[in-house]
């Protein structure tokens, strides 16, 4: 994704070479790419309309007309999964972006400023780590209604903590490195050092962790939607489709299996891509 921009610098070329040898990661990248394209084009390429019911047809198993079968209202499952994927992926990307912005800013400021401010900021992170966030998100959704914008914020507000720690650690470690000192003694300005040396060197871990945050965010959304506390009908997401599938799984197991497989496959792809990026961009950290 954005990891492999045409920077022309050796770090990124090196990373791309490593990544292109990791077939699992490439497979993950291909799946994610495909999903993004399908989600973007859904309104034009979906085989049926989103709300199109066929009560006479009812629930049917997969067939030539309906590749993944239909639900009890005769709605095409493939169409439902495609539209659900739009919501699931949007939540995944936007909530991760929220976490990314808060986490990077918080961690970078704490790492740069250091001293007492750093201590206070990281103590706040420690305290928030100790809070039972799953419970708080449920609480937020109950108190303020099940609103998709709130869902983004609530999930993003949970996931930024680790990002802040990673960025701070990275910035602190970098500040002490000799090449930064060398840059200082060469008379480079603070801003040039940040732009030329600090940012490119923190980008690796940040990209890796971002890729790994997306699946955990999507999981959280699916979890909430499954409980009925996340995405609300008429909107739909994979978690919600799994929830519906469970209700009728005895008679119509495909209504559970297809959304389930789609969700798992996506999480798989994102995790493989994240692991591959970690090996490629951040050789110092081991796999676990």
């Amino acid at each position, binding site marked *: 994704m954005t990891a492999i921009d045409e920077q022309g610098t050796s770090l990124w070329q090196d990373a791309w070479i490593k990544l292109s040898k990791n077939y699992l990661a490439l497979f993950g990248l291909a799946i994610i790419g495909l999903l993004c394209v399908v989600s973007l084009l859904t309104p034009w390429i979906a085989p049926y309309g989103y709300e199109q019911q066929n009560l006479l047809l009812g629930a049917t198993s997969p067939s030539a007309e309906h590749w993944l079968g239909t639900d009890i209202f005769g709605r095409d499952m493939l169409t439902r999964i495609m539209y659900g994927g739009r919501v699931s992926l949007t939540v995944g990307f936007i909530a991760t972006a929220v976490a990314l912005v808060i986490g990077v800013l918080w961690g970078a400021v704490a790492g740069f400023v250091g001293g007492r401010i750093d201590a206070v900021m990281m103590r706040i992170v420690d305290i928030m780590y100790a809070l039972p966030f799953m*419970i708080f998100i*449920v609480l937020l959704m109950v108190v*303020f209604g099940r609103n998709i914008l709130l869902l983004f914020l609530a999930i993003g507000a949970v996931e930024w903590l680790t990002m802040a720690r990673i960025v701070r650690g990275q910035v602190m470690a970098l500040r002490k490195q000799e090449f930064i000192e060398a840059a200082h003694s060469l008379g480079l300005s603070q801003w040039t050092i940040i732009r030329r040396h600090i940012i490119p060197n923190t980008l690796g871990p940040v990209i890796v962790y971002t890729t790994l945050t997306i699946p955990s965010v999507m999981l959280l959304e*699916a979890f909430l939607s499954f409980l009925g506390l996340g995405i609300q009908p008429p909107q739909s997401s994979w978690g919600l489709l*799994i*929830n519906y599938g*469970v209700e009728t799984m005895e008679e119509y197991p495909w209504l559970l299996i297809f959304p389930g497989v789609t969700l798992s496959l996506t999480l798989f792809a994102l995790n*493989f891509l994240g692991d591959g990026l970690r090996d490629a961009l951040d050789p110092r950290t081991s796999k676990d």
Partner: protein
Amino acid sequence: MLRFAFYRLLQAIPVLLIVISLTFMLVHSAPGGPFSADKAVPPEVIKALEAQYNLDQPLWQQYVSYLGDVLQGDFGPSFKYPGRDVTELIAAGLPATAELAFYAMLVALVIGVSAGVAAAMRPNTAQDYIPMSAAMIGICMPSFLLGPLLVLVFGIYLEWLPVSGWDDMPGDKILPAITLGTGYAAYIARLSRGGMLEVLSQDYIRTARAKGLSEALVIAKHALRGGLIPVVAFLGPAFAGLLGGSFVVETIFQIPGLGRFYVQAAFNRDYTMILGTTVFFSTLIIVFNLLSDMLAIWLNPKLRQQTRGES
């Protein structure tokens, strides 16, 4: 060590206060009171109910008296189950949840540690790849998907195990425990593999091997202690996750535990119940985090030295 525990306990107090205050504020800023959801109720009745639950007092007064009650272990009356205390409801749901969490943890530790250790013993062979790929599947298979699939296969098609219930039929605890434990087994497998790989490359392991100890003894007597430190440190957060997972698993298998109560309370807008369980869960999680940190320090001589040095 004791000093460390003491400081951590001191740290826990502000965290708990924040939890209680935040939850209290959130719950009381909710649009629509707890009695507004039902059919049209005469205003006098609402007034009487509000007086009964002290909702007519100013907010800070409610907050102070709630704090006082919580310190004495009293979470107040439930809004939705008249005549029952939240404390009573928590006590009713706790045994099932605790048992479920215990079995799930057992599943996770037994499967996870043995898979991780086996993988670390022969890295980059089939003995490594197969359990680690299985672990990846375990991580990507959320409990709300795994549970129904297990029910479908073992409960409905094969009819080997009961599909729901708790303490009704023999074997009705197997599927819930596996459903809840699998994801953690996967994480623990990855953590113990990483930890063991690091320890197995250390000098003292080479010494143990040079003494002529069998590989099994080297692992059991020397490597496990150090190799499992990441797993022990993970137990605290895992416990917090288990509580969250119990929401789903107890709902799927209709287990009368705290998790299901919490989800129901969330739907019913039973505010005192939400408030009470949140405070209760948070206390549990903080205590378990403390225990798992202390255990990890006790296992790791380097960290032990550090905490002594600090104090």
